[in-house]
């Protein structure tokens, strides 16, 4: 059984937040939703979690859906242990099982030594890990994490993703939204959102191979289809034509996302 969205449209007044968005994620799979600010990542997460009404399409989600909001969802005036105990109580997890599960989650998140610390006194990385642990406590079939890595230092991001990978290996369907394109490489599936529309979707290989035309490097900008990447410029050639003496660059997800956005912007 897979979970996700089918041709979902979400509207807030006159604003279309999601338009024709589909996403399918099965047990043990991780799908990463990539997009900039206002792309619709949080709306997609909330829709999957059952917090937004859909105008069109449908949402497939199990009864046991774990959700971590953008704010981490940690109660600041409860300790780490109290946060976990509250969630276990809310899902009516049997006491002995809850205790074992909490111990296990504290161990894999390295939050054990901080179990008596108040939520407000945790670092950003610890808060996010606690948020994911809370979302996992009910043993959900679908885990939805809204920008869990935003604002974290590189080491905390690595630790967090290791924890997310563990959740998927336990057989859960995992959906993670992020503004960091490099994080998409960790997933089986990628969905690139821009202004509520899907720019690209599918497996990482599929998305990479679906790039129309070619990309090459240049030491100067070349029209509207070029962008800065490190010390040089990247140029997108939709018809795959290259200047003489120039070879196509091996593209990654960051290039694909940029090209998809340019294609939508320029109609090319």
């Amino acid at each position, binding site marked *: 059984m897979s979970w996700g969205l089918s041709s979902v449209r979400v509207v807030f007044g006159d604003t279309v937040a999601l338009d024709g968005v589909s996403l399918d994620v099965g047990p043990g799979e991780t799908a990463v939703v990539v997009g900039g600010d206002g792309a619709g990542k949080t709306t997609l997460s909330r829709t999957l979690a059952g917090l937004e009404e*859909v105008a069109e399409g449908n949402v497939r989600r199990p009864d046991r859906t774990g959700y971590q*909001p953008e704010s981490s969802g940690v109660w600041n005036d409860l300790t780490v242990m109290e946060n976990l105990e509250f969630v276990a109580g809310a899902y009516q997890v049997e006491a002995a099982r809850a205790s074992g599960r909490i111990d296990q989650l504290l161990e894999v998140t390295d939050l054990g030594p901080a179990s008596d610390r108040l939520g407000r006194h945790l670092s950003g990385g610890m808060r996010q890990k606690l948020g994911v642990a809370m979302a996992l406590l009910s043993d959900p079939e679908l885990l939805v994490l809204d920008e869990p890595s935003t604002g974290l230092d590189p080491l905390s991001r690595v630790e967090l993703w290791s924890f997310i990978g563990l959740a998927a290996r336990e057989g859960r369907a995992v959906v993670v939204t992020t503004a960091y394109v490099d994080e998409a490489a960790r997933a089986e599936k990628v969905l690139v959102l821009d202004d509520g529309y899907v720019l690209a979707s599918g497996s990482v290989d599929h998305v990479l191979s679906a790039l129309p035309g070619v990309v090459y490097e240049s030491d100067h900008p070349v029209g509207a289809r070029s962008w800065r990447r490190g010390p040089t410029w990247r140029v997108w050639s939709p018809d795959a034509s290259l200047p003489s003496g120039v070879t196509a660059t091996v593209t990654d997800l960051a290039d694909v996302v940029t090209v998809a956005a340019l294609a939508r912007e320029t109609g090319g």
Partner: protein
Amino acid sequence: MLAMILKEFRQVGRDRRTLAMLIVMPIVLLLVFGYAASFDVEEIPTVVIGDRADAVAERLPEVFDVERIDPAGERAEAEEALITGEAHVAFLIDDGAGIALIDGSELFMARAAVQVVTAVENQIPGLSHEVLFNPDLDTSAVLVPGLAGLIIVFVGTLVTSMSVVREREAGTLEQLAVMPFRPSDVFIGKISPYFLIASFDILVVLVIGTLVFDVPFNGTLLPLVLGAVLFLFVALGAGVLISSVSENQAQAIQLAIMTALPQIMLSGIIFPLSSMAAGVRWIGYLLPLTYFNIVAKGTMLRGASFSDLLMPLGLLALLGAVIFGLAVVRFARQLRPVRREARV
């Protein structure tokens, strides 16, 4: 400096709700103080009882607004009229002698009545007066029951609204929304601590008021407890309602103050309702604190029974049902916005 001034003007202009309060509040305060803030007593609800009641009623000064004349009644009827709140002065005329029984639980009215009756005693031989329920006309005796109501307003409305908004600001309200709770579970869980804290506060105020300030407790506990519980539901419901229309804690505080202020001014705790202009007095009768104050003073000072207080208790229950019901509906809508999705 000009840039700083411009920035502040822009920011103030954007915060429409605060701006509205800054402009509307002085006007409201002016109207409320102008029409409601009066200690002058112009009419005192009065009953005249006894064998020469008709004749005495005709000779009473205009300030005594005679509601009922009962030539066949006796002292018990006179006292009952004061206990139920039908009148605040009862003239009991019996065989040439007369006594004005004055309700001491209505401080300003009682003081005015004592003054006028003392003057009348010179014109009507054999007339005397007796202040019941609060013989020394102590201010604390009259204020302590109302203070219990103010505590309920503070804890129930202000603190509850801030707590719910804080939960939303922190993003944890949506956590609760995805958990397998019914909205009523979250609602009851959310207000329970404040219900207990407010109940404890009321108990402390009443115990200290009785033991330290010698406030009498002439009635039974049941009507007061029932009145406090009903009023708590109104106040907690108002708190949750305020939270549902507030974007942040500052707005919740502003709105809570805007709802608390008219209750403090117009509920009869400070200024007698009968001294207010008719145009403002009706607002007082729409406010729940008015009825809690009647119940609290009635129970503690006048020894009113459950049946004597049926009307204010019933109105508190009605207001509670409306406000609490609205709060539950709005809270449930916030927690369960999804209706049309296909859930497997």
